């Protein structure tokens, strides 16, 4: 049955995030031939809204307000509710990002609806939309359906492919006026701690360090390798607990769960909590001094050696072949 599905286009650094394009592809599946409506919120976002059309949206609603420049749950809830009231969609898709995680349950509660979060796959089995999502940090998976209300879905970045970009597609991009008032939370300041702009959860390549990096400085060779590969840097709990790096880099059952195309584990032993956070990566490379390290049991390729010897050489080799 054809359904109208909204997709929240999420803006970061003046661009739409890739996960928003993946969300359009998901919405396409949910809509079963119905209309896909992109929604882009911000202070001045009209110019970037059109790219949602190129990736498969039929039209885009632009919601501009100074209160939407930075995300707060109140401002975005109010804006989205006004859009939802006007459009009456049957489904809404978000990225499973900081914003999507914060906002979607609030809207689902308002609309007394079911929400399946963090999906990694979707299939249509005889008219039933079945969502696959990891549980126990990827140690298992479940298949779920939504039985009541507006279908709310958040998608994990990097798992559902975006549609091919088609710049010849055209569609209506129109502005929507909303009223935003009585905000109860105010963002006073944003301190950027991520410098290179490669977000762990969306990264295609991750270079991660464990206790084997030995110090904060020990992350330097990993960062150099990451730079060459356009990768994000991550860490095991061991490295975070030892204060070699910030907790925001932690990958594992506590911390982030990641599924990049390539995961390079350097000096990580491979405790079960860490494996839960990364073992669903497509390709895993392990570099560790200890040939018995558990990480080799999940690695596609392993090098037994000192990371301070191997990693710089790897960086040089990649530099040679990637020019």
């Amino acid at each position, binding site marked *: 049955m054809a359904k109208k599905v909204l997709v929240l286009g999420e803006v970061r650094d003046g661009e739409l995030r890739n996960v928003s394009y993946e969300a359009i592809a998901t919405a396409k599946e949910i809509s079963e031939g119905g209309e896909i409506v992109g929604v882009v919120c911000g202070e001045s976002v009209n110019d970037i809204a059109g790219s949602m059309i190129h990736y498969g949206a039929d039209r885009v609603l632009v919601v501009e307000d100074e209160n939407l420049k930075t995300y707060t*749950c109140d401002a975005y*809830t109010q804006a989205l509710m006004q859009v939802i009231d006007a459009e009456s969609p049957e489904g809404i898709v978000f990225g499973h990002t*900081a914003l999507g*995680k*914060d906002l979607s*349950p*609030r809207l*689902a*509660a308002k609309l*007394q609806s*079911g*929400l399946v*979060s*963090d999906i990694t796959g979707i299939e249509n089995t005889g008219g039933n939309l079945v969502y696959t999502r990891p*549980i*126990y*940090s990827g*140690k*298992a*998976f*479940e298949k*779920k359906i939504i*039985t*009541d*209300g507006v279908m709310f879905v958040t998608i994990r970045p990097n798992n559902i492919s975006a549609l091919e970009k088609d710049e010849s597609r055209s569609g209506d991009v129109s502005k929507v006026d909303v009223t935003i008032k009585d905000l109860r*939370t*105010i*963002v006073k*300041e*944003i*301190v950027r701690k*991520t410098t290179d702009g490669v977000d762990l959860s969306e990264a295609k*390549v991750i270079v991660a360090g464990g206790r084997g990096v030995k110090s904060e400085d020990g992350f330097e060779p990993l960062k150099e390798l990451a730079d060459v590969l356009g990768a994000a840097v991550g860490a095991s709990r061991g490295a975070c607990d030892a204060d070699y790096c910030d*907790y*925001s880099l*932690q990958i594992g*059952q*506590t*911390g982030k769960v990641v599924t990049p*195309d*390539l995961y390079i584990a350097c000096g990580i032993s491979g405790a*079960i909590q860490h494996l839960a956070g990364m*073992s*669903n990566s497509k*390709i*895993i*490379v392990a570099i560790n001094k200890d*040939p018995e390290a558990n990480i*080799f*049991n*999940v690695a596609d*390729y*392993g*090098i037994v*050696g000192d990371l301070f010897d*191997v990693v710089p*050489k*790897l960086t040089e*080799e990649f530099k040679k*072949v990637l020019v």
Partner: protein
Amino acid sequence: MNIYVILKRTFDTEEKIAIENGKISEDGVEFIINPYDEYAVEEAIKLRDEHGGEVTVVTVGEEESDKQLRTALAMGADKAVLIDDEDVDYGDQYSTAKILAAYFEDKEVDIILGGNVAIDGASGQVGPRLAELLDMPHVTTITKLEVEGSTVKIERDVEGDLEIIETSLPVLVTAQQGLNEPRYPSLPGIMKAKKKPLEELELDDLDLDEDEVEGKTRTLEVFLPPEKQAGKVLEGEVDDQVKELVSLLRSEAKVI
């Protein structure tokens, strides 16, 4: 201050997952307070010690959750409430939030703390859903909390960046790693916890009908991911291994 913590009993992080009769097996499994909820308990105790008042820990779940509640009491919480959801059909985050909202309906609340996600189901929904049902603002993934009068200053982790937020009581917040270092229950704490009140409630006690809290989603199936096979450990001189690895990543794995 009237401080509440919503917490969940989860598998220990070390547990391997096995499936029996189409369900996740709980045979021989060790349970803990969800680690993110533990940060919430710690922060609640610190808030009370600074501002006075009372910490109540609340869970929705099976009877056995009383052990995790006792642990929270041993850490220093004052009261505990266990709401049994055994009779709920297809219970999901909608159900849990609705049950909690019914519990909070007649309570004077200054702040509710929870974890930003549970390490089992990992939906991260219950906190924001509950805040909406109680018509209070929420702030997720917080790493610092300061209350002065009715003003609340919060730092939150947003995908690695730091947001500084100001809001006011009442508010619901969810904890991120880095918020604090949860204490271990002390022996006197454990002894005292045995005498602290632990209230057990049924849906009836909250004037809730099973139908009202039936989930909005269904789980059709749980399954294990294909077991990852150990791959190739390279051999030879390090320089050659590095060359071989780069070549394999490009030609065989095709990820670079």
